[in-house]
């Protein structure tokens, strides 16, 4: 029997027995065949002694059972690790960060508690997937749209908690930004509701996010402080129409102005969909991997030779057709002075989406979940197939032309030097408000290649940190390194997180080690 660290066999056996009483024996798993299904299938430590695996898993059906499980664990100091749908592939999947933790699998808590059409909001449990919500909305004839990430089997709650993103309108597509109201079981087993949920009888839990005093929602983002059992979201009313367009410029030197104007337009709410920034000439060989940005003269020569634009900005619009047409016209007017600028309408439709249109569209832009994204890696572009999975490297970079060029060059150069394959590379993803996030997908294998991959990624984390670029999210194997890079004030951010951790979870049982925050009793093992 694998024991959680710091727990005696007696306490563990006793704890599992108590959990069986709480949730039913068929929902406590401690046999190898079952625990095998909780492994992180894309782990960069797969099959190695350091792989992080569950010692058991427990699947409560409701909040009362979660409270019992947490109390049982807290009394015996058993580390537990909640997962929602467990599909955070590329960022840890359903495995814990601390090897030997007991996974609390919340998939059975799959109730859509409310979709409030008048308030344009919902309240859900963590086991609700984007597929579940979409079906519910369509079958109930809802006027609302849920922003979805690419893989639709994920949890609304889990994805938001890990700061996932989608493609829809601003304020909704950064999924944690759309959260309004959290219920969480704290380490002592008590229930906390944030915002207006703390006021008995309020009808405003999914309206006013802040409540009174410090806003505590952030305590639960990428955190170790509670088991989230309910979460509210603001939802986007389905628009009448959609329009996608592109502004293309023909010189290397035009990038800075392109980004500056685009930023101003977005911050002024003159388009609401997720904008794209790319380089047609540098993605001509592979549409999902931007090549190294060459020197200006060389890039301009390539543009002349191929006829492809140097850079593109792709605004997207949701709204009444008249309004978005006028917005697009205004957007064009702001770039008209750039020599050689080209404007294209790349797609438009009126909702509801027809069966024909459904086959052509990028579904997540319309809040429609699927698993289509997985074709990029299993047998997609590149010569590294078949791989066994992927991880993401995703650093926040400055939102400017200089940011795009520098991040591109540093990543391309360092990945080449380190022999690190990328099958998707975009230095300017814009899911999150006012941000550029560099996205690089790295293929993972279930063999000795992973040791090299770990070393290379760790080195890149350090190199990016030297440039002032920190990751917004990462797989468990790199959480300590990434948190380490946020080092201002002698790591004051981490130290304050540790103080909060020790105060709220004195026995150090919840999500130990997640995003580099360790409770006092395990802190010495941080670098292990």
């Amino acid at each position, binding site marked *: 029997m694998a024991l959680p660290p710091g727990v005696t066999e007696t306490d563990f056996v006793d704890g599992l027995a108590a959990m069986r009483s709480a949730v039913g024996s068929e929902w406590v798993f401690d046999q190898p065949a079952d625990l095998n299904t909780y492994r992180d299938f894309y782990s960069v430590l797969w099959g190695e002694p350091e792989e992080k695996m569950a010692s058991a898993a427990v699947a409560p059906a409701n909040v009362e059972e979660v409270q019992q499980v947490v109390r049982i664990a807290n009394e015996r100091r058993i580390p537990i690790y909640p997962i929602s749908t467990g599909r955070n592939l590329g960022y840890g999947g359903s495995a814990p960060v601390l090897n030997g933790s007991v996974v609390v699998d919340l998939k059975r808590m799959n109730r859509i508690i409310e979709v409030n059409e008048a308030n344009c909001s919902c309240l859900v449990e963590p086991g609700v997937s984007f597929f579940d919500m979409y*079906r519910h909305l369509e079958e109930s004839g809802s006027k609302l749209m849920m922003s979805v990430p690419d893989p639709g089997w994920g949890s609304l709650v889990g994805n938001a908690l890990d700061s996932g993103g989608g493609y829809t309108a601003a304020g909704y597509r950064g999924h944690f930004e759309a959260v309004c109201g959290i219920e969480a079981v704290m380490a002592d087993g008590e229930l906390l509701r944030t915002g207006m949920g703390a006021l008995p009888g309020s009808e405003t839990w999914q309206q006013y996010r802040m409540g009174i005093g410090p806003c505590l929602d952030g305590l639960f983002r990428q955190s170790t402080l509670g088991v989230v059992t309910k979460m509210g979201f603001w939802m986007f009313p389905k628009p009448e129409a959609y329009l996608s367009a592109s502004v293309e410029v023909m010189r290397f030197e035009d990038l800075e102005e392109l980004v500056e104007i685009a930023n101003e337009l977005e911050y002024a709410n003159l388009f609401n969909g997720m904008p794209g920034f790319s380089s047609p000439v540098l993605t001509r060989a592979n549409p999902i991997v931007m090549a190294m940005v060459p020197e200006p003269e060389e890039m301009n020569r390539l543009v002349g030779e191929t006829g492809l634009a140097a850079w593109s900005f792709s605004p997207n619009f949701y709204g009444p057709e008249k309004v978005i047409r006028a917005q697009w016209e205004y957007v064009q007017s702001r770039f008209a002075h750039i020599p050689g600028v080209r404007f294209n309408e790349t797609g438009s439709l009126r909702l509801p989406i027809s069966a024909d249109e459904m086959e052509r569209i990028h579904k997540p832009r319309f809040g429609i979940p699927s698993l289509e994204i997985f*074709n990029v890696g299993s047998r997609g572009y590149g010569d590294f197939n078949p791989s066994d999975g992927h991880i993401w490297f995703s650093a926040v970079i400055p939102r400017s032309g200089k940011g795009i060029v520098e991040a591109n060059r540093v990543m391309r150069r360092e990945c080449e030097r380190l022999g690190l394959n990328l099958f998707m590379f975009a230095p300017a993803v814009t899911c999150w408000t006012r941000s550029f996030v560099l996205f690089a997908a790295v293929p993972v294998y279930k063999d000795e290649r992973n040791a090299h991959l770990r070393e290379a990624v760790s080195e890149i984390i350090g190199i990016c940190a030297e440039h002032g670029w920190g990751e917004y999210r990462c797989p468990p194997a790199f959480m300590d390194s990434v948190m380490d890079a946020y080092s201002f004030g002698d790591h004051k951010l981490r130290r304050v997180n540790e103080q909060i951790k020790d105060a709220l979870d004195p026995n150090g049982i919840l999500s130990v080690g997640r995003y580099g925050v360790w409770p006092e009793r395990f802190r010495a093992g941080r670098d292990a």
Partner: protein
Amino acid sequence: MRLLLASAALVALGCGAVAAQQVARTGPGAEELQAGKRVYAHWCAPCHADVPSLAGTMSLAVKYEGSDIPAALEDRTDLPAPVISVFVRNGVAWMPPFRKTEISDADLAQLNAYLTAPLEDRGAHVPLLAEEMVRMQEGGE
């Protein structure tokens, strides 16, 4: 795992998937297979439906290139229940394993019943969720 795959392939070559393809696939299919068909629609179809660009179908098309084994799982007649269970609980390539909180043992038994039933009993292919919802909306107008 490789042994299982190899034996599954041999079974398929022996029983002739080509003949199986000629069976008409219309209607809902046999009543006793509906529960398994729903499990398939929710958990398998998003990657394995009969759409060449989906990850699972794309991978299996490459794997069985040059053979008469169909790429879409719903068209396979060569997969014994234990083989399906091994893939569901262990995963393969990019497909992770499925937990009992997602596909229970009872669900898995129903899935196996569906994917091992004669093709004529399975009825029409399940639609992808988006397709199902669009059809529902268009049908309701």
